[in-house]
């Protein structure tokens, strides 16, 4: 099996996992879930670090560093803000309903 095919297979499987895992989420979790997923794609930080770490010239380096800053904001901020949204599910503390997102 070629490496490309392996990656494709992994990609397809990941698509299924992604579909299945969230297919039965309740409305109230839409926003936190979106935010959590958003934080996860902050792993582009790994890519950014690789780019910066293996930069051959200044422009690559600076692009990489710029990407690191952006990706870090995405990842760290994302997890923290998601956690804040989910505070209402800590124990059984009602009423603190995040008025976010699902507003119409």
């Amino acid at each position, binding site marked *: 099996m070629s490496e490309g095919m392996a990656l494709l297979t992994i990609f397809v499987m990941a698509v299924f996992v992604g579909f299945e*895992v969230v*297919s039965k989420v309740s409305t109230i979790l839409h926003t936190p879930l979106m935010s959590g997923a958003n934080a996860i794609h902050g792993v582009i930080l790994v*890519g950014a670090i690789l780019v910066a770490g293996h930069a051959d010239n200044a422009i690559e380096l600076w692009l990489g560093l710029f990407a690191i800053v952006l990706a870090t904001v995405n990842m760290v901020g994302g997890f923290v803000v998601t956690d804040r949204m989910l505070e209402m599910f800590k124990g059984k503390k009602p*009423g603190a309903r995040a008025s976010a*997102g699902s507003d119409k």
Partner: protein
Amino acid sequence: MSANAVSLAYLVAAVAFILALKGLSSPPSARNGNMIGAIGALIAVIVVLISGNLSHVWMIYVAMLIGVVPGVWAARRVKMTAIPQLVALFNGVGGGAAAVVALAEFLKSGHTDPVGSLVATVFSILIGSVSFAGSAVTFAKLQELMTTRPVVLPGGKYVSALVAVATLAAAIAVLPTGNTALVVALLALSLVLGVLFVLPVGGADVPIVISLLNAFTGLTVAASGYLLNNTLLIVAGTLVGASGTILTRLMAQAMGRSVVSILFGAFTAKASTAGGPSEARPVRSAGPEDIAILLAYAHKVIIVPGYGLAVAQAQHTVRELADLLASRGVTVEYAIHPVAGRMPGHMNVLLAEANVPYEQLKEMDEVNGEFASTDVAVVIGANDVVNPAARTDPSAPIYGMPILNVDQATNIVFMKRSMRPGFAGIENELLYDPKTTLLFGDAKDSLTKVVGAIKNM
């Protein structure tokens, strides 16, 4: 670290991300899910940092530090109500990062890359930039830096179509040539496209668009992963792309919108005005699942039945709801207004038929003091008996009538079919209260759905 060890660590991180999404899909596990996701991300970052052969390590650390500070600060300080725009912002910078990574990779080896990698590069730059620019606009809308209404430029749809075609052309042109100038052009065009894409979206659709852009960013990350030959990025990006797509559909469904019409809002004149907050007074309506969660996580719920409950003959269903909540440990009471319904004791007759124990029925005087400590007041087919106009508006025909102090509850849920008033024919301010959530529909239908949703939790 050996290559295999790194791969293994990445696999662990990928699994953590899967578990994170899984956890985030159900209320009791949501917080832990998020935590697991964060741990996965931490592992990934540590591994890439210690896996060796990185240059510029200190600069990298500094760059990360520069990112952490505002990220955490914003996430911590922001007001609850401003969270959506923050999420939009975070999403945008993520997309931007992915596009920049792709650009850097391209600059490094683009001219010699195989077509496959070039496709990934182009995809990453295009979608990443759209996501970045689009998110920036949604942020501006939500933060009210610009109008929240759909912005339709004169001839907007032609401009949009033109830019879209140009972007596509640039993208395709890059593939055989690997031309740097074309890539830069692509970048610029994509940014414009992102702006044009989001401008015509009305306030109500913004959360859906954020979710869509989020899925886009996921796919961009996956493409970057392909470029960098990094499985973790592929898996994580794909997960987010796939789950984000599903989520976008779910959100659109829950709000009764069509994803397609939002997607192509920029190209169709009609869609651009749909659902804008042009109605003079906004009300917040929600789906049965929202109400279900609100109720299930409450400590104390007071049910306020009215004439509509009788019309819908929903007495048995409301009892079912009350029993279900009680079995989950929620305190449930019924607040009976003396003139609810159309006959003295109408509610008594109705609820007695459904065998609601007499002890759960509270008279107005008895219950009015309790609303302040109530998490959710559920007003089912009642209107006049909770209308604050009775206290505030001397010209109202109900002025002077004592009412149930529903407005003191932390949350208020109304189940009714429309915005029409009740017997007295006067508007109810409470429907527009920020604490109020409306569930439109026949009371029996609505209750049945809420009961179903709670049972599914």
